[in-house]
């Protein structure tokens, strides 16, 4: 039983990282009906910027240092997200959907291979911003302080996002844009600015996910966004794409399912499982787990 609960704890930490990435997919899909395949690579850029930022900010306690690293990486990725939207997707706003989709794949490949050229193809070891130690031991189930911090940071960010979407004017505008572009424009919502902001928000969360992963698993490289990006996309679809609580639940589900498969069956099948899960859920509920409550689309 201890083993089972330990796997759940491990799965939750991994899953909250997937959730953070999945949110970006889901938000962009909500406002643009576009699957932004470059999103996984923004997560990679987030980790890389964090790696270099940690080398610049060497002073201060571990909390201030982590804060600075997180902020600088979020800032860079937010800008990058806005830039990608402006340069790659906005010119295609009126083009058929498939064009934007293929452009997204192009942007993704560009970021990956430009990253290999810029950062080098070797994996890098993410610095220990926080000394890893046991936070507490509950009858043999170990909670590591980094895993704990990942929970806290992810949930704070997700609540922050929920607040922005539900309680602010910008959030209201985003929800309106996701219903109808034309309608929002008619009531005076600057839809281009709102779409830009959606990209910024999604990229900021991806940057945070990149750094949290760096802290958890230490190894970062320019192609690291590929698999987590796909899995987060699956998570977003599982939860019902376009749905924020759905992305959260989908991410956690993926993380837990994956660790359970690695722990009890074999790690060879962990990726296969992600996609089997997707097929099964879509067969039973084609709109995803939370697909019905589509009023919350963002």
């Amino acid at each position: 039983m201890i083993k089972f609960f330990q796997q759940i704890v491990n799965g939750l930490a991994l899953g909250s990282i997937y959730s953070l990435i999945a949110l970006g997919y889901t938000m962009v899909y909500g406002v643009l009906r576009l699957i932004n395949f470059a999103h996984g690579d923004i997560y990679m850029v987030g980790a890389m910027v964090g790696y270099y930022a940690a080398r610049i900010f060497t002073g201060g306690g571990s909390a201030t240092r982590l804060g600075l690293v997180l902020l600088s990486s979020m800032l860079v990725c937010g800008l990058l997200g806005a830039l990608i939207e402006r340069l790659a997707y906005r010119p295609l706003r009126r083009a058929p959907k498939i064009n934007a989709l293929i452009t997204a794949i192009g942007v993704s490949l560009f970021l990956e291979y430009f990253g290999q050229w810029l950062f080098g193809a070797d994996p890098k070891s993410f610095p220990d911003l926080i000394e890893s130690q046991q936070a507490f031991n509950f009858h043999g189930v170990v909670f590591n302080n980094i895993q704990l911090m990942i929970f806290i940071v992810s949930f704070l960010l997700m609540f922050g996002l929920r607040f922005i979407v539900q309680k602010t004017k910008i959030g209201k505008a985003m929800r309106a844009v996701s219903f109808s572009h034309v309608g929002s424009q008619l009531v005076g919502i600057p839809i281009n600015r709102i779409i830009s902001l959606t990209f910024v928000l999604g990229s900021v969360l991806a940057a945070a996910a990149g750094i949290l992963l760096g802290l958890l698993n230490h190894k970062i490289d320019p192609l690291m966004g590929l698999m987590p990006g796909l899995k987060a996309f699956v998570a977003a679809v599982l939860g019902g794409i376009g749905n924020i609580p759905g992305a959260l639940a989908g991410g956690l589900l993926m993380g837990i399912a994956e660790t359970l498969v690695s722990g009890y069956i074999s790690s060879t099948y962990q990726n296969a499982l992600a996609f089997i899960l997707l097929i099964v859920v879509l067969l039973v509920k084609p709109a995803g787990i939370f697909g019905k409550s589509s009023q919350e689309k963002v």
Partner: protein
Amino acid sequence: MLKPTFRKISWFFLILFCLCFGNACVKHEDSLTVGVFASLTGTTATFGQSMNEGIQLALEEVNQSGGLLGKKVRTVVEDDQSKPEEAKSAVLKLIQQDQVLALLGEVASSRSLAAAPDAQNSKIPMLSPASTNPKVTEVGDYIFRACFVDTFQGSSMARFAYNDLGLRKIAILYDVKNDYSVGLMEFFDKTFRELGGEIVAKESYSENDIDFRAQLTTIKGDAPQAIYVPGYYTEVGLIARQARDLGITLPLLGGDGWDSVKTLEIGGKSVEGSYYTNHYSADDPSPVVQNFIKKYQEKYKKVPDAMAVLGYDAANMLFDAIRRAGSAEGPKIRDSLASTKDFQGVSGKITMDPQRNASKRIVILKIEGGKVKFFKSLEPS
């Protein structure tokens, strides 16, 4: 309008044709060309870089002493980005375009295996400095290695764990997609059971995985006395860290895939107290070893790792074989490589056995105080 365009296009193709063929056919008549394919970038970049540095040092020395067969030796180095499919195309390029007379590479068994059939088919002798999986030289009679095989490496570690460390229950965590790792796992498993030990858990991961907590949690539940991790340094470092995060304080055991400064860099304090089998130790007081370390440090300003030593030994074995063959033809070099006996390399006295595997001693190293220390050496049985 059509005609001039057509003429332009034909000119273009003619020039392109000349460029392609002109380039490919430039033969270096005054030198002997040896092809090197190595992982200069990618997940096991330090292996390829070190191996190539060792080769280049040997090359410099042989050219300083007048070259071979009255000619200078040169190498063409291709990067395979740590990917088996790239290794195959690198070797094809070396054979067809550069027309090399012999090949040196690869470190990783999966990449040597991907490239070996092409070398065998073109009758170009290929000497792998460090691929330890037995299957590599089974590809054909033109494929050699300058290191011991995993049968020896895996069983040596099993014997060491049972006899010297007195361990009876061991868990294994291996890379299921990697021939090297699977091979070591099998031979360790077999020998350890034969000795009377017990393998309490056998878990796997795949290359490029970054989360090993699930497997480690399972292993923890089975209460072993040590974990055998026959993987490569990037994953080993991560596994060690995550094991400590989960409160697992057992020693880790490994193979020569651990041999990189990155093991300590990524693993940090987590790899303390671990043991691994290797080809050589920098602490070895023998003059051959110390002399090599001095030369290497002068050139590269760092302590050589095992891959540098094996690269150096492999290059020298090949040069020695060419010298003894007195010819630069593939079949003759092959025959003389096969008859290598008591060749004094830095990693020990090397003799080619009938299966084209180098038979030589193995050393066991221990990580202690942030340094890798010599612990014991075992002779081939």
